[in-house]
């Protein structure tokens, strides 16, 4: 039995394909990219916007202009429904069966974290995962997409406690990785200012009423309440504050939350809310890159309204294209990583000039906004987290 197993194991080794013969996913005619994302489950809307209306939008623009060094871009996406085990299966299928060149814009901490070990081992570039936990740090083949929670927290706390001299903070947070990583970062950053979180209340994903949490937080009398939530519960928290007539508090939304959707849901309850914005306003911004994004959206997907998720995907597509252009005609995974690592002062027209350091973080900034007449008004220039 043991000999049989040994023989089988040896055969398995022999049967493995020779390494490094040709770069997977790159032919003379095309480059194939793929990603596991949410097309069902709690983040289905975000997933679809990032991929089909974001990354693919930019790639259509590139393809219509002749592609990258004559190669057209093609993408394949699999649904993981926000489940880590399905993300692992999908990622393996993309790498081993579809032989994608790189993984692009996967979403959500649990699915992304579950695949990190595999992509490092297989040396497949994972480009711009859309999630805010710092777990992607220090990985050779991963380039973080969204501004991570500890950087967001530093910018928020330094601005509010440092510049605005606010002393009393509390937080309402989603009871998961997203909420807890922000909570830990807030406590650390407030500690630097010799302050503490006066109260923190958690909200379960998918819960229908937050009145108890808001009542408890009101009793702590904070000057600022951080909202570390997703759009639905965040809008409920704002409406709840209106219902109990709680006026002497400033509600502040985190980077991942500051978007038009929760404004639309909260209606006039959102007036005066402030927050850290990671992206310029996709609908009203005059930045040249955002204008081009809107033109492209109107041209290719006239029915899809501009939003931050598709901007994030569009930006991811842009960043990949830029690096792949510089990596040259002889595109390999290592060459792409080298090109990304040597990105200096890249002008996207959406975010400030981008230089990617050894930490592989592609976004580290945000600016402060306040809601006035139902839209975000920019209050500061880009805040930095270095």
């Amino acid at each position, binding site marked *: 039995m043991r000999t049989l197993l040994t023989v089988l194991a040896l055969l398995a080794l022999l049967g493995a394909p020779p390494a490094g013969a040709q770069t997977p996913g790159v032919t003379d005619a095309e480059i194939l990219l793929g990603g596991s994302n949410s097309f069902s489950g709690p983040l289905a*809307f975000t997933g679809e916007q990032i991929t089909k209306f974001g990354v693919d939008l930019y790639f259509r623009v590139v393809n219509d202009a002749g592609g990258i060094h004559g190669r057209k871009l093609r993408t394949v996406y699999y649904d993981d429904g926000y489940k880590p085990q399905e993300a692992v299966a999908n990622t393996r299928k993309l790498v081993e069966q579809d032989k994608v060149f790189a993984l692009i814009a996967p979403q959500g901490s649990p699915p992304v974290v579950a695949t990190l070990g595999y992509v490092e081992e297989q040396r497949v570039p994972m480009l711009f995962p859309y999630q805010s936990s710092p777990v992607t740090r220090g990985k050779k083949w991963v380039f973080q997409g969204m501004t991570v929670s500890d950087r967001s927290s530093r910018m928020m706390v330094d601005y509010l406690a440092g510049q605005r001299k606010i002393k009393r903070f509390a937080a309402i947070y989603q009871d998961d990785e997203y909420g807890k990583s922000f909570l830990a970062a807030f406590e650390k950053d407030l500690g630097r200012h010799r302050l503490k979180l006066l109260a923190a209340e958690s909200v*379960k994903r*998918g819960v*229908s009423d937050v009145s108890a949490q808001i009542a408890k937080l009101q009793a702590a009398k904070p000057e600022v309440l951080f909202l570390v939530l997703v759009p639905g519960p965040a809008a409920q928290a704002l409406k709840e504050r209106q219902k109990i007539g709680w006026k002497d508090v400033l509600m502040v939304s985190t980077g991942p939350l500051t978007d038009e*959707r929760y404004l639309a849901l909260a209606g006039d309850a959102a007036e005066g809310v402030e927050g850290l914005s990671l992206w310029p306003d996709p609908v009203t911004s005059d930045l040249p890159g955002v204008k081009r994004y809107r033109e492209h959206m109107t041209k290719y997907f006239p029915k899809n309204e501009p939003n931050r998720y598709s901007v994030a995907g569009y930006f991811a597509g842009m960043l990949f294209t830029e690096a792949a252009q510089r990596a040259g005609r002889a595109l390999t995974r290592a060459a792409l990583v080298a090109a990304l690592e040597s990105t200096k002062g890249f002008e996207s027209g959406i975010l400030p000039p981008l230089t990617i350091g050894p930490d592989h973080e592609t976004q580290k900034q945000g600016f402060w906004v306040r809601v006035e007449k139902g839209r975000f008004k920019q209050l500061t220039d880009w805040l930095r987290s270095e």
Partner: protein
Amino acid sequence: MTTTALVHVVVSGLATGSIYALMAISLVIIYNATRTLNFAQGEMLMISTFVGWSAHEALRLPLPLVLLIAVAAAAALGWLVERLVIRHAIAATHLDVLIITLGLSLVLRAAAGLVWTHDEFPFPSFFRERPIGLGPLRVAPVSLGIIGGSLALMLALAALFRWTRLGRAMRAVAQNQRAARLMGISVERVYSASWVLAAVVGAIAGVLIAPVIFLSSKMGLVAINGFTAAVLGGFGSMPGAVVGGMLLGVLENLAPLWLPAGIKHSVPFLLMIAILVIRPSGVLGRVRQRKV
């Protein structure tokens, strides 16, 4: 915690609780007729609310008309589902029917995502949100409105079961199908009527709650709380469903006030297990004799 705040939290809990109660009632209506759980109840609520909202967006209809359209859509959907799918599975086991409703819930949610996207949308409300003073207390009209609307619907249902021919037929079928058939009641018609009625109750609950939890393809998950509420009240009993729903809504809101973070989110489920183990017939129920 001030009394004002406490009263507000309890009233808010009663408001969501009355929606849970309506969900529980619609589940019980179907259970009593066909002895099956309808896992798609929440998704039927979601679809009919979306249909009403679409009419509102396209034609700027007034809200009462939107409610009517949602109810009509629900009735049509309930009738179609029963007629086209469930009735063909009538010879199958209850488990098979369970899986069918489960498949149906996936289909309906995915279809809603394809038609309306998986985004969340604000929904117009009959009631205002800014608080009004009631003596020393302050309450939000929207909470009172939801509670009042739900209670009115419950009374109407009670009247229907007590005084109409259809209601009596439904109660007879719930008690004993064979006897009901022998009495000349068309059991098939009762099946149909149950699905339609359950869907209509769901649609009204949907229009009431959508301004609060927002309209989205995932709003049907509120049905899970409906299950819990129905169990708390003793599955099969209508008054039990009402009490179970209200109890669940209030407990869900009070638990975060006093319990440590570790346990507060488990309260509904721990309570459900406790009720099942100690008193399976629910807080109001009587122990039923087992049939051989």
